[in-house]
């Protein structure tokens, strides 16, 4: 009962339904709408992805989504990106500190963005090594994948927070 039920590319047939959601067929059984949940959202983006039905019950786990055909991986990524919406900060134009908040203007991989974070211990988290999560006042997350890779101007702007 507690064993992990793995879904492989041979057993599971994934497709995108007309509503834009991911559907799954395993043998006779069909799930018109499934969602993908990462077990290790920070460390293993492709491994141990839990497949859940509309009622959030686990159907099974995909050990590595990269073992699926290219077009299915694309579907998976689309679904995962929608769920784990996480823009990556590429360049920091300005960080202005005022009134207990800091106002950011950045370039992310999804476009330009201005946001506000609180100046507290929960809004700028050094996850591991050089990786930083920035959480704004609305609860949106942004990632700085490696702060040492930032250009020197961007780095200087956040240096005092590190």
């Amino acid at each position, binding site marked *: 009962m507690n064993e992990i039920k793995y879904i492989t590319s041979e057993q599971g047939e994934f497709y995108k*339904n*007309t*509503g*834009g*959601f991911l559907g799954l067929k395993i043998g006779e059984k069909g799930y*018109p*709408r499934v969602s993908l949940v990462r077990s290790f*959202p920070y460390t293993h983006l492709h491994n141990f992805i839990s497949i859940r039905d*509309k009622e959030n019950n686990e159907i099974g786990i995909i050990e590595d989504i990269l073992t699926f055909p290219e077009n299915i991986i694309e579907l998976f990524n*689309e679904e995962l*990106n*929608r*769920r*784990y*919406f*996480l*823009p990556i900060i590429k360049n920091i134009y300005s960080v202005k500190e*005022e*009134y*207990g*908040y800091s*106002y950011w203007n950045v370039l*992310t991989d*999804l*476009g*330009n*963005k201005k*946001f*506000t974070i*609180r100046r*507290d211990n*929960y809004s700028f988290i050094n996850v591991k090594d050089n990786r930083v999560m920035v959480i*704004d*006042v*609305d*609860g*949106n*997350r942004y990632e700085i994948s490696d702060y040492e890779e930032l250009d020197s101007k961007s780095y200087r702007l956040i*240096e*005092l927070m590190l």
Partner: protein
Amino acid sequence: MSNIIMDEVINNLPENIYQILKLNKIEKKDLLIAAKGDLDSDGNYGASWVLATATDMIVATEKSLIYHIEDIEDLSNEKVIAGGLLVATIAGLDSILCSFSNTCARDFGFFVKLFKKLKEGKELSPEDFEDNEMPMFCPKCRTRYDDPARKICPKCFDKRAIFLRVMSYLPKYKIELFFMLLCMFASSILNIAIPYIGGNILFDKVLKAGGEYYGEIVFFIMLMFVIKLVATAVSIIYGRINSSLTARVIFDLKTEIFGALQRLSLSFYNNNQTGTLMNNVNGDAMHLQYFFHDGAPYFIVNFITMVGIFVVMITMNWKLALITILPIPIIIYILKGFFPKLLVMFNRMFRRGGNLNSIINDSLNGSRVVKAFGKEASEVSRFSKTNDGVYQINMDLGQMVQTAFPLLYLMMGFSGLIVWGYGSWLVVNGEMTFGSLITFTGYGAMLIGPLQFMTQITQWWSDCMNSASRIFEIMDTVPEVEEKSDAIRIPSIKGNVEIKDVSFGYEPNNPVLHNLNFKVNSGEMIGIVGHSGAGKSTLTNIITRLYDVKEGAINIDGINIKDLSLKDLHSQIGMVLQETFLFIGTVAENIAYAKPEATMKEIIEAAKVANAHDFILELPEGYDTIIGSRGKNFSGGEKQRISIARAVLLNPNILILDEATASLDTETEKLIQEALEKLIKGRTTFAIAHRLSTLRNADRLVVIEKGKIEELGTHEELIRSKGTYYKLLQKQKEALKLQGVS
């Protein structure tokens, strides 16, 4: 329509959307509700719009789609990790209409709520639009707040008003203030006088042949002595007044803050954002303390001193005055660049030191686990890794300080040399006396400190005003659960409870309970059953009015609890929770927490009912045993019985048991079960339990699933209907059987 956010969306639609609307014969005035998303259909930052008239809904991303509202079976706002999806169910199929980040989640939630009204064919009233309107905007400049939890508008943040409010704590202490200011003034004058006496007077008038006081060394020494004496006296008086004044102002402020914290509703504490606000409250009070104790007085003293020195120097010799002042901006510039770096390194050192301490703590507290798993070596390596970081920062900091400070002193010495050089030249040429030169060098050194202080004052001032604004924010928060001015007093509740059409959620647009309806008679025991997270504890939270319901009503003895006096309500509802909380104090005080006037007899009686009397008497200090941080630590079962005694003593007419017997061993559970049975008698009781056997005495059971009532009836009725309760019961029986076998 009367909602700023929606009005803004509708009035700023891109031209192509207006065109599409026109083609479909929809006019701007037909649009009733609207929301704008911040992502395009590929998930990049962009824009999307959803609009609705009374009959149609328009979704505009890169392409626009129009739906008839009657075709949409359901519209929902589905939360993902950092945003949401607008999902419509059409002909049984769920479709994603658009996605958005958390920034827009509130607007979409509001859209969905109003859409549902439209779908029911109801007309939207102005009240429907009120929900999230005003508080989200700055009332002055209409800018949307960056942070919905803190209503601070960066444009209108009025530091002056906050400063005046901080200062309003002072007038109570007028006399002290007057003397303090007097002392500050005196201290500044003396500060300026000392170099003058040590320079001009000593060298030019006492030591110089022909000087006014030539040779009167004893007089001069006496003068110096008296000045030092006065200066010391002034600084002692000033320091004493300052310390007592600051302590009193901060005492007043902290008392007021703590009072405000107690007044606030539970929702304020549970809200993540405001929770952070409270964590900082002590730190904020400290900031204000610095302001009163160090900041403001130093500012005044430094200001007077600086102005005084400038005036004296310019009157003595304006050329040398300029030369003395010139290098100071350079030194300050260097200091300004250097100090923040130093500060960052110090912070890093403290943080790493803190981490090291937590690892030591962690490892020592968990020593049983460490040893049992034989992980001593890995603990050492975990420690070494962090310790290495501490070593590194200590070394860097030490090296930086040891290099930077000598260089800085060299720089200062060099600028001193220029003054000496030019001054000496003036002395040799007879344009200035030697004494004046000594006075000048003294003043030059005295200027650096105050000037540096002045450069930091802006940062320091804004930190201080931030702290003050956060403190005032807590003080000004209006509690969500508030007693009406004409609240109904009800000294003795009978215990008839009616839950009527109640829906409730802790966050807007995220309901936990849906449309609950049931009646409980006085003295009846209701067992509340359901999976974790089904909403059982939430139900008890709203019955006790720790939170206010927004939809529906809860009536006790036929009166809406919102109309009841809070004191009467809370003094007649007893709670026994899974996580017991004992306060610092004696066992007796803890039992009497809700009824401090209880007699010793009452306390012992209550403890006896709670099966706590015997174990309390086994303690050497009996009922006088101190509980708390340094006091006796009780086991889970013992704490639970003390908290039951607390409820017994309160003698409530309504009782709430929230997993009161969970996580206890069988023997203790029996004792507590017994105690509870005595307690329940004659009271309206709501009991939550995972272990269904503990609810065997319940008159009726309510099964809650996903916030809805799934079943309601007596044990027998529910068994007969073979629904969720029956299944749960079967599962638990099987589990018990398995335990029996093993």
